[in-house]
């Protein structure tokens, strides 16, 4: 049998390189005015409403969406360029990024017209932050074991239960979340979940912080007690959310954010090694560069397939699997390669603080948004083994 893994070499068209120059100029300006520090780890994880509004004003949120909804009808490759420039620069894009990457596309596909008209343009202006409600205290990777419930009432649904590890819930305006609307059927344990758009300002929603081991407030527990969701905030088929899950995966999984989360330590290493590294430093650095280059070319290739209207689910999962493992191991490799440098050189780079931070966040990289094990299950299914 033949397996068709497609990673055609994509050459970014000229408009992408022009856009790249614009994005770099914009980011340089933001750095100059003190919005963020490209070398300070953690800046890239922060929510900055004002920054997101300025990004929106440049037309860089909802880039691929239709104009009637505030989008800009640009290509996936153009969106790719902006995303990678922001990630490589450590820009604080978390306020708008999830909405741009995955919530907006779900709304585009499943929301009623008046909801799209209401919400999508505000996402594009950088005014809205989205959270994703999937994991619960008793279920994580096993998405379809979710228990939080939605019960039908007049004009909508009452939701009860908890979501957990919810990134950005404390600043989010909306959440796209799965709730159980029926028990699973005998034939299909995935049956019975429905996707809802939840206005986080609704009464009956409590957001409790969960501090991460880095000291950051990255995620939350969200408790729903008789919170109301109107009928027109049901996304797609009732009880059929599982059918909607797969096609968004390629968007979520294959982007540059899946291998650039610890990129700053590589830049720090290059600075610390200086212009004439010894053989060990040069060889170690060269391998990391080759691995990064390969991941990027894979990711660009998936963006090209998305642009061509394909749904490269297996390829996207492979990019996330390889990419997150790489960015997770990167701090350890950099630490080894910097081991024999003078402490003052490392401090000047400023590599020590970067390494400390990257080492702490590394474990989450292969967990969030689909664990390594889940991804490999998806890949194995794509290979025909399941």
């Amino acid at each position, binding site marked *: *049998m*033949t*397996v068709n*893994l497609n*990673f*055609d*070499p*994509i*050459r*970014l068209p000229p408009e992408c390189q022009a856009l*790249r120059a614009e994005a770099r100029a914009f980011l340089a300006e933001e750095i100059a005015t003190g919005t963020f520090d490209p070398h300070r780890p953690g800046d890239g994880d922060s929510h900055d409403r004002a920054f997101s509004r300025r990004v929106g004003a440049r037309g860089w949120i909802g880039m691929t969406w239709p104009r009637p909804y505030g989008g800009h009808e640009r290509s996936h490759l153009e969106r790719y*360029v902006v995303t*990678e*420039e922001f990630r*490589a620069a450590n820009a604080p894009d978390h306020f708008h990024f999830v909405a741009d990457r995955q919530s907006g596309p779900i709304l585009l596909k499943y929301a009623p017209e008046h909801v799209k008209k209401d919400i999508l343009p505000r996402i594009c202006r950088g005014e809205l932050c989205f959270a994703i409600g999937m994991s619960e205290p008793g279920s994580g990777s096993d998405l379809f074991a979710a228990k939080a419930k939605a019960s039908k009432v007049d004009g909508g649904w009452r939701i009860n239960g908890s979501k957990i590890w919810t990134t950005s819930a404390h600043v989010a305006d909306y959440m796209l979340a799965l709730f159980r609307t029926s028990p699973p059927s005998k034939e299909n344990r995935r049956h019975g979940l429905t996707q809802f758009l939840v206005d986080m300002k609704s009464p009956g929603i409590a957001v409790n912080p969960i501090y991460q081991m880095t000291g950051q407030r990255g995620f939350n527990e969200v408790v729903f007690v008789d919170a109301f969701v109107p009928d027109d905030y049901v996304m797609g088929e009732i009880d059929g959310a599982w059918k909607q899950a797969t096609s968004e995966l390629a968007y979520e999984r294959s982007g540059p954010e899946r291998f650039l989360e610890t990129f700053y330590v*590589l*830049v*720090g290493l*290059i*600075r610390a*090694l*200086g*212009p*004439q*590294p010894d*053989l060990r*430093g*040069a*060889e*170690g*650095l*060269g*391998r990391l*560069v*080759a*691995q*990064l*280059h*390969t*991941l*990027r*070319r*894979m990711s660009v*290739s998936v963006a090209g397939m998305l642009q061509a209207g394909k749904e490269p689910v*297996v*390829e996207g999962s*492979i990019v996330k*699997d*390889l990419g997150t493992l790489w960015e997770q191991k990167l701090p350890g490799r950099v630490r080894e390669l910097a081991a024999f440098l003078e402490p003052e050189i490392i401090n000047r780079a400023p590599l020590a603080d970067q390494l400390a931070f990257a080492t702490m966040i590394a474990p989450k990289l292969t967990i969030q948004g689909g664990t390594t*094990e889940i*991804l*490999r*299950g998806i*890949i*194995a299914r*794509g*290979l*025909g*083994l*399941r």
Partner: protein
Amino acid sequence: MAGESQHLVADAAARIFADLAEPSAINRAENGGWKEPLWRALGDAGLTLAWVPEALGGSGASLADGFAVLGVAGRFALAVPLAETLAAGWLLACAGLEAPLTPMTLAPVRPRDRVAADADGKLSGRAGGVPFAQDCRHIAVLADGGERPVIALVEIKDCRLSEGRNLAGDAMNVVTFDRAKPLRSAPVPGGFGRSHLLLMGSTIRSVATAGALEAILALSLAYARQRVAFERPIGKFQAVQQNLARLAGEVAAALAAAGSAADAIAQAAAFDEAVFLEAASAKIRVAEAAAEGAAIAHQVFGAIGFTREHMLHRFTLRMLSWRDDFGSESYWAAELGRHVARRGADEFWPLVAAR
């Protein structure tokens, strides 16, 4: 980017390989009698001199077409000097030299080896690890000349060869030139040097290795579905599925890196910095994938895959050998690391994002 032309020429090559170089049949062959008809068919199809312009005696195919053929050759673990003949033809054409209709190899394939041309144009020096030298009639050589490098075509019989084999049992010789007189030679155009030859050769190996990895993924999947243990096909076990998913990841990385490097060379007007990044990165990452992928495939196959009788070694041992040709991954990693360090931290991302 695989276009219509690449599909046509790759299909033509695949038909020839399937008929005359099917790996399990070759693995059973008692002798090398299969080589002659295979080589004749490849020559008749114009594949051996694909990278030689028609004016110089070749078939004038594009670089992209040639790379497509080499990817297919990798999928068959091809054990004749097709890649070497293509590369030799390309090298000769770089100096405007005609190519003979014989199996060719080329030198140097190791970064430290040097061959020098004297004032009379005679060549002296040693080149190690030359693939298939004893099976070829001619060798294309890049030699240091007085002012500019020289490309020369030399008859193998005018060189001294040491006996040698690579891990897969393919001939691999140390070729010694002792005032060897070339059949023809010419100075190369300005700027062309050893690194160009090594980058081109590396990409040829990267593309073939990616093809071989595709083949071992397909073989491993078929075996995992068919082999039963503990009353289930082994492919039903999560541990095996995870390994095969990792193998698919290595195959994907190799395909992407090699394909991108080949495309960069096929499109580039010159061997510029972008080609260096692409071709060096591909050689490094594909070699890593070869090591990782070979280990996983052997783990899936267990003892049967470790036998001479099974064809798996035709792929795995060849891939592992190819890592050493035209600069190992360690060599290129050091070169790439030095280059990146020289450019400096602030110029790193612009280099990565150039294409």
